[in-house]
């Protein structure tokens, strides 16, 4: 077997290798799986002793297949001698002369040291989110939201922030490979051209393209061009987070497939059913912002405040900020919607199973009905089509359509449901009908439902070509692997959740000669050397016409949106016979229900190798670096399980072993697992960590299924959680109240505490007169949804190191701003509150006093400055910080050696070394940049001109920064609100960071029945 593998000559000639991976992947996975039993897959090295692993390594790195074994000692020495001799020779050759030149003519607007911003878009699940990318001397360093883009409005989600790390990820695939051997791009083009000619003779029969969701007009046109040329070829698309159920539901309700666009701004009452509307999805940032617009408590004394009901099984970001949260299993949701529809007077039966929730349903229905045309009901993608159809009917009956929800033609360009599309492909592969498969992006070997046995069937395809950012699981099973250009390296276009088009422009030339999907497709055309740039321009030239093209093009690139490209709103109406066609309700089956969802930080696994996202605590559990089996406290108690106990989750014949995490507020008898982990080939960061939840999925229920089983294994597993303690211990740390309470007591301070936190404790010393600027920050807990975007934006802005699971487990994570999450109320249905904690920038800073070397000192503007160069690392400041916001470099956490990561760093922020304390600086580099700018222009710094990284990214505008000495500044005004309080005010640290108490808007009719809250 080894011989076959090393026989590259036959591969190089284009003769298909028998099989580049003769090692049974399934068996290897099984082996890896079996290893999870005892210790999990802490590292692949653990397996290194096994024969299978060695074989795997050799297949993986054929060049490294043991030379010594094949060669005799004599030959080896000869070779060594020869190579040494050759090495010596090279010294005699003259090195080529390479002249470097300074910029004789500087590029336009290019000032060394000054960043430039370029508008582009970053896709998530195919949908673009408009961004502005900061570029320093030609290298992108930071992603910001594009205020003009409808999905962004200036904010971004965590993925957009982390994309910049993926760009520079040293693990990205860096070469075209055929059977594991590096080949030039032209070799692939030759193969593609040969296939193009061969397949052209039979109308493309046997040619298949597999993509993820495609919204790009150019790419879709390009694929359609190919399909038009080759009518026998087919285009398949699949990714696990898809809208199949929604589309099927819309079709059932309206008779046509449409995409929804919500307008939360117009909704007084919102009901989310198993829908994480504010969470990680293409429109999430926009919706979160619209939601927060309706959470401004002070406006009209709260009269504009909306009310959010959430019905869900496991707490999501949306559920965590809900005013009322009803805990139901996904399979019970349909019964709930029917009960709601019935309560709203629609011709449906109230299912008996909803009897216990009668009061809740009635109250919600009443609230919704009261707000006709100003309410909104949303169901999550995971729920079956029947629920979506019913929700459409409910929205229709509430006259919400066109007001709080409008419908547009599907933004995705491929009309076929993704699940069916993939199944068709698998069936054809199995039947041997596929000759050439072009996998453009995605990672179907990993993400395809387990029962499709995609990997096995894939290997029946004679020529498999893969374009991917990483040489991942799918690349392993393909003949050709083509390195994909990162979106920040390539030209393209993409549509947003509402259809708005953004032209994607590269910020940097491909670091590793990557190619975009467009360029790969071009290889299968008569013009194989066409570049992405030419193709995108060609498409838009044909769309816009030649007239005025250049100025339109430039304008679109500059703005980051193509004006007027948002999809037109479709008028849809509920089918007349909708209620007649309603099928009887399928009762929720008893027993354990398995729920599968994208991971809150690594999504469906595409971000598995992104250290920032791995280390970002999951919004509700604060776990890092792992996925777990989430259980309700009651279920865990029944099974006698503790956090970290390893269980086997069984669904039919599929099973995985996962550590348990008990999640208060989860539905009993459910087990939630997130996708995105357990990837053997994710890279050095994400490889082999966690559990592959896709192994549980099936094509019939890839979002989860009832009838699961849990088996205790008796093993334990160490998890890295950044917040071990979730109770407030009765301390006045978090102020929170209902709108009703706010109206009576606007400070929301607990009894016995002075209102507002404006009183100052007496001091023997005169205070420091802050006569210039006095920087301050206000964080609105009523707006914060706990998404974690601030943390990751801070990581990106301030060159914060990733420390790894072991260090996190030891309590050494480096995040400068953390989001604390506390539970309130009972274990089974608690309320959640999020509290972002950056450095409080105390005026009486306990840390400054104790530093023996003056490494942390106060600025005249009230900043608590950290002088890295002066720090010797006594850690005294961290000990004495009551907020514990200081972070210490216990080791050399920063990667000082990886070349690609050097490009990533923000040049305005020091890269810290070992043994140094660090912490939030209020983004002092941004303050100074604006200060210099203002000084040059001879004016004062305007309010809102300085945005801290956390403020800029925040989807809900919960963080406001500014000069509190300027009475007109937003922060000064916010600090005067009665809701303002200082954290641990009694310590007299006089923090510059203040909080606004959280306000919820519960339905007075439900407040007495607290069990739903």
């Amino acid at each position, binding site marked *: 077997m080894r011989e076959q593998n090393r026989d590259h000559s036959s591969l190089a000639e284009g003769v298909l290798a028998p099989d580049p991976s003769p090692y049974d992947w399934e068996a290897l996975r099984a082996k890896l799986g079996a290893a999870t039993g005892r210790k999990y897959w802490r590292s692949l090295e653990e397996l290194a002793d096994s024969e299978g692993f060695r074989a795997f390594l050799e297949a993986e790195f054929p060049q490294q297949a043991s030379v010594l074994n094949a060669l005799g000692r004599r030959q080896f020495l000869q070779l060594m001698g020869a190579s040494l001799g050759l090495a010596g020779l090279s010294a005699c050759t003259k090195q080529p002369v390479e002249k470097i030149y300074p910029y004789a003519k500087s590029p336009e607007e290019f000032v060394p040291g000054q960043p430039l911003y370029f508008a582009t878009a970053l896709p998530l699940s195919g949908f673009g989110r408009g961004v502005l990318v900061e570029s320093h001397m030609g290298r992108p360093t930071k992603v910001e939201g594009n205020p003009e883009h409808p999905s962004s409005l200036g904010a971004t989600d965590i993925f957009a922030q982390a994309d910049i790390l993926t760009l520079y990820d040293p693990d990205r695939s860096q070469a075209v490979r055929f059977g594991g051997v590096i080949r030039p791009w032209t070799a692939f083009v030759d193969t593609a051209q040969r296939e193009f000619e061969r397949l052209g003779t039979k109308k493309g029969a046997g040619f298949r393209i597999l993509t993820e969701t495609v919204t790009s007009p150019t790419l879709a046109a390009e694929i359609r061009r190919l399909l038009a040329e080759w009518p026998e070829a087919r285009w398949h698309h699949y990714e696990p987070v898809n809208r199949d159920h929604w589309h099927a539901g819309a079709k059932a309700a309206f008779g046509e497939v449409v995409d929804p666009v919500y307008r939360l701004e117009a909704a007084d009452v919102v009901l989310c059913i198993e829908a994480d509307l504010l969470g990680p999805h293409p429109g999430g940032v926009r919706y979160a912002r619209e939601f927060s617009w309706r959470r401004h408590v002070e406006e009209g004394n709260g009269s504009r405040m909306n009310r959010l009901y959430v019905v869900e099984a496991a707490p999501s970001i949306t559920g965590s900020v809900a005013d009322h949260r009803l805990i139901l299993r996904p399979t019970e949701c349909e019964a709930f919607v029917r009960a709601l529809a019935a309560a709203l007077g629609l011709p449906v039966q109230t299912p008996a199973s909803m009897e216990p929730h009668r009061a809740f349903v009635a109250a919600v229905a009443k609230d919704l009905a009261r707000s006709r045309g100003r309410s909104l009901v949303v169901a999550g993608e995971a729920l079956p089509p029947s629920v979506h159809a019913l929700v459409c009917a409910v929205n229709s009956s509430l006259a919400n359509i066109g007001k709080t929800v409008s419908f547009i033609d599907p933004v995705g360009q491929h009309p076929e449901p993704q699940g069916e599309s993939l199944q068709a492909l698998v069936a054809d592969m199995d039947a041997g009908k596929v000759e050439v498969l072009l996998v453009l992006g995605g990672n179907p070997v990993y993400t395809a439902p387990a029962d499709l046995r995609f990997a096995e069937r894939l290997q029946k395809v004679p020529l498999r070509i893969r374009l991917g950012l990483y040489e991942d699981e799918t690349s392993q099973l393909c003949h050709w692997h083509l390195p994909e250009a990162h979106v920040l390296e390539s030209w393209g276009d993409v549509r947003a959740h509402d259809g708005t088009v953004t032209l994607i422009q590269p910020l940097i030339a491909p670091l590793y000669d990557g190619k975009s999907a467009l360029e790969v497709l071009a290889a299968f055309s008569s013009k194989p050397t066409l570049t992405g740039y030419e193709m995108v321009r060609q498409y838009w030239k044909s769309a816009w016409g030649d007239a005025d093209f250049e100025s339109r093009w430039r304008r679109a690139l500059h703005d980051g949106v193509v004006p007027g490209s948002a999809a037109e709103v479709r008028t849809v109406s509920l089918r007349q016979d909708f209620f007649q066609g309603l099928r009887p309700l399928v009762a929720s089956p008893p027993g354990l229900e398995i729920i599968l969802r994208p991971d809150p930080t690594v999504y469906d696994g595409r971000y598995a190798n992104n250290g920032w996202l791995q280390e970002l605590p999951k919004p509700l559990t604060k776990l890092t670096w792992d996925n777990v089996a989430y259980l309700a406290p009651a279920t865990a108690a029944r099974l006698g399980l503790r956090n970290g106990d390893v269980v086997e989750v069984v669904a039919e014949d599929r099973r995985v072993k996962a550590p348990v995490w008990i999640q208060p507020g989860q539905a009993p008898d459910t087990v939630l697992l997130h996708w995105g982990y357990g990837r053997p080939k994710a890279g050095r960061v994400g490889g082999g960590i966690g559990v592959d939840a896709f192994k549980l999925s099936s094509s019939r229920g890839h979002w989860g299924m009832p009838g699961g089983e849990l088996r205790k294994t008796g093993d334990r597993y160490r998890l890295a959680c950044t917040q071990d303690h979730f109770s407030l211990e009765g301390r006045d740390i978090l102020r929170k109240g209902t709108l009703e309470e706010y109206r009576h007591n606007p400070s929301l301070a607990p009894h016995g505490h002075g209102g507002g936190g404006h009183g100052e404790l007496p001091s023997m010393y005169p205070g420091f007169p802050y006569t210039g600027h006095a920087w301050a920050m206000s964080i609105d807990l009523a707006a914060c949804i706990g998404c974690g975007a601030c943390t990751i934006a801070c990581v990106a802005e301030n060159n914060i190191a990733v420390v790894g699971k072991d260090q996190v487990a030891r309590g*050494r994570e480096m995040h400068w701003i953390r989001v604390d999450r506390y539970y309130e109320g009972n274990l089974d249905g608690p309320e959640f509150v999020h509290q972002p904690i950056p450095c409080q920038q105390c005026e009486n800073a306990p840390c400054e*006093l*104790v530093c*023996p*070397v003056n490494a942390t000192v106060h600025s005249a503007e009230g900043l608590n400055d950290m002088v890295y160069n002066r720090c*010797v690392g006594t850690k005294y400041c961290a000990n*004495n910080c009551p907020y514990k916001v200081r972070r210490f470099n*216990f*080791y050399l956490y920063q990667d000082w050696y990886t070349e690609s990561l050097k490009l990533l760093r923000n040049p305005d922020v020091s890269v810290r*070394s070992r043994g140094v304390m660090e912490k939030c600086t209020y983004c002092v580099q941004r303050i100074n940049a604006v200060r210099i700018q203002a000084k040059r222009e001879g004016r004062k710094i305007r309010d809102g001109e300085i945005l801290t990284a956390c403020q800029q990214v925040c989807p809900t505008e919960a963080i406001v920064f500014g000069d509190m000495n300027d009475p007109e500044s937003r922060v000064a005004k916010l600090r005067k609100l009665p809701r303002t309080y200082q954290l641990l005010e009694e310590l007299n640290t006089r923090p510059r960071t203040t909080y606004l108490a959280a306000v919820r808007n519960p339905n007075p009719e439900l407040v007495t029945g607290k069990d739903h809250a």
Partner: protein
Amino acid sequence: MSAPARDLGPIIGPGHTFETVTDKIAAVVLSETRKGWMLGFGISFVLLTIFLQCVAVLFVRGIGIWGINIPVGWGFDIINFVWWIGIGHAGTLISAILLLFRQTWRTSINRFAEAMTLFAVACAGLYPILHLGRPWLFYWLLPYPNAMGMWPNFRSPLMWDVFAVSTYATVSALFWFVGLIPDLATLRDRSTSRVGRIIYGILAMGWRGSARHWNRYETAYLLLAGLSTPLVVSVHSVVSFDFAVGIIPGWHATIFPPYFVAGAIYAGFAMVLTLTIPLRRYYGLEDFITMRHINYMARVMLATGLVVAYGYLMEIFMAWYSGNPFESFMVKNRLTGPYSTLYAALIVTNVVIPQLLWFQRVRTNIPLLFAVAMSINVGMWLERYVIIVVSLHRDFLPSSWGMYAGTIYDYGTFIGTIGLFLTLLFLFIRLLPMISIFEMRTLLPEAKVKEKHA
């Protein structure tokens, strides 16, 4: 003191003359190396190499090898620092304060206790350097003139520590060395080897025992004693400021200075006993370090132990009396939190067991006394663990609470400094007279008779 002195026996065994005292003590240094010493020194040296290994790894990799984290930024490093500093205290107390109070019984243990002080301070002094994130920059804590015009932060207790500990080390070393000079001259005169004569000769600084020498010696010694006296109180008070100045519940308490000083003397005497008991037995020095000495030391331990116990009690009382919820939680957490076992062990070893010292029979029972002293050694270490770790691990915001446990390097470094301490101690025993010869001679009846005549 005369009445109890009769009860407790003499401070020097009967039948000794100037010559026998000198012979007996100098013999330890001047005779052949004994096997037991070799064994003890060997073991200590092995422990010392553990220390060197741990420090080597520390310097190469960083202080991440220890168990510290956020929120517990100090662990074994500062626990051990305070523990060693505390141990050092008995030496100064015995040499300086007891000298000024003319407690002649101190004579037979002061040299030894001073040496112990010095070595303990050496061990303690290492930790503040080792615990730095960037130990190579430790000198930044010193106020030295530099081109950057940077000064240390004089408001920081750690800065005060630098002065307190370095002053303490300097004065202790001086005091010890000055006290050694007459004995070094004795060794010079008695040494049979040329090398010994040269080295002891240089160290003796030309001591000839003339009346003028004695006069100057007495003056210098008394002055140094006067200088050291405030140090007994100041050093550990300053160390306690490291905590008392902090705002962490469990640290921020005004009782800390006296409570720390008492604890230090308590720990110091326990350590003196721990070392004296085996040594006097091994080298047959029961005549010089008599039951009376041991009894006195036990009494000092009892008294200081009670002050320490009072400190514990006051912490609990003030937590309740102040009505500060953070303080009361801190006490509750000590009593019932995850480290409650350690707190219970602290109370048992440091408060309950030492109550045995009320009994004369315990104070004169050598093995039992040794056990009590060991218990206090452990207890005082636990006390610092409780103060540092247990206070830090759960402070104000429950979200940032964490846990702490020492790693193998923490233990290795701790054991290693014990090795360093013992190595130095064994070298001291072998190379210098562990009991002050000339001072012992003044205790003899012969000396007294002459005085009376004069």
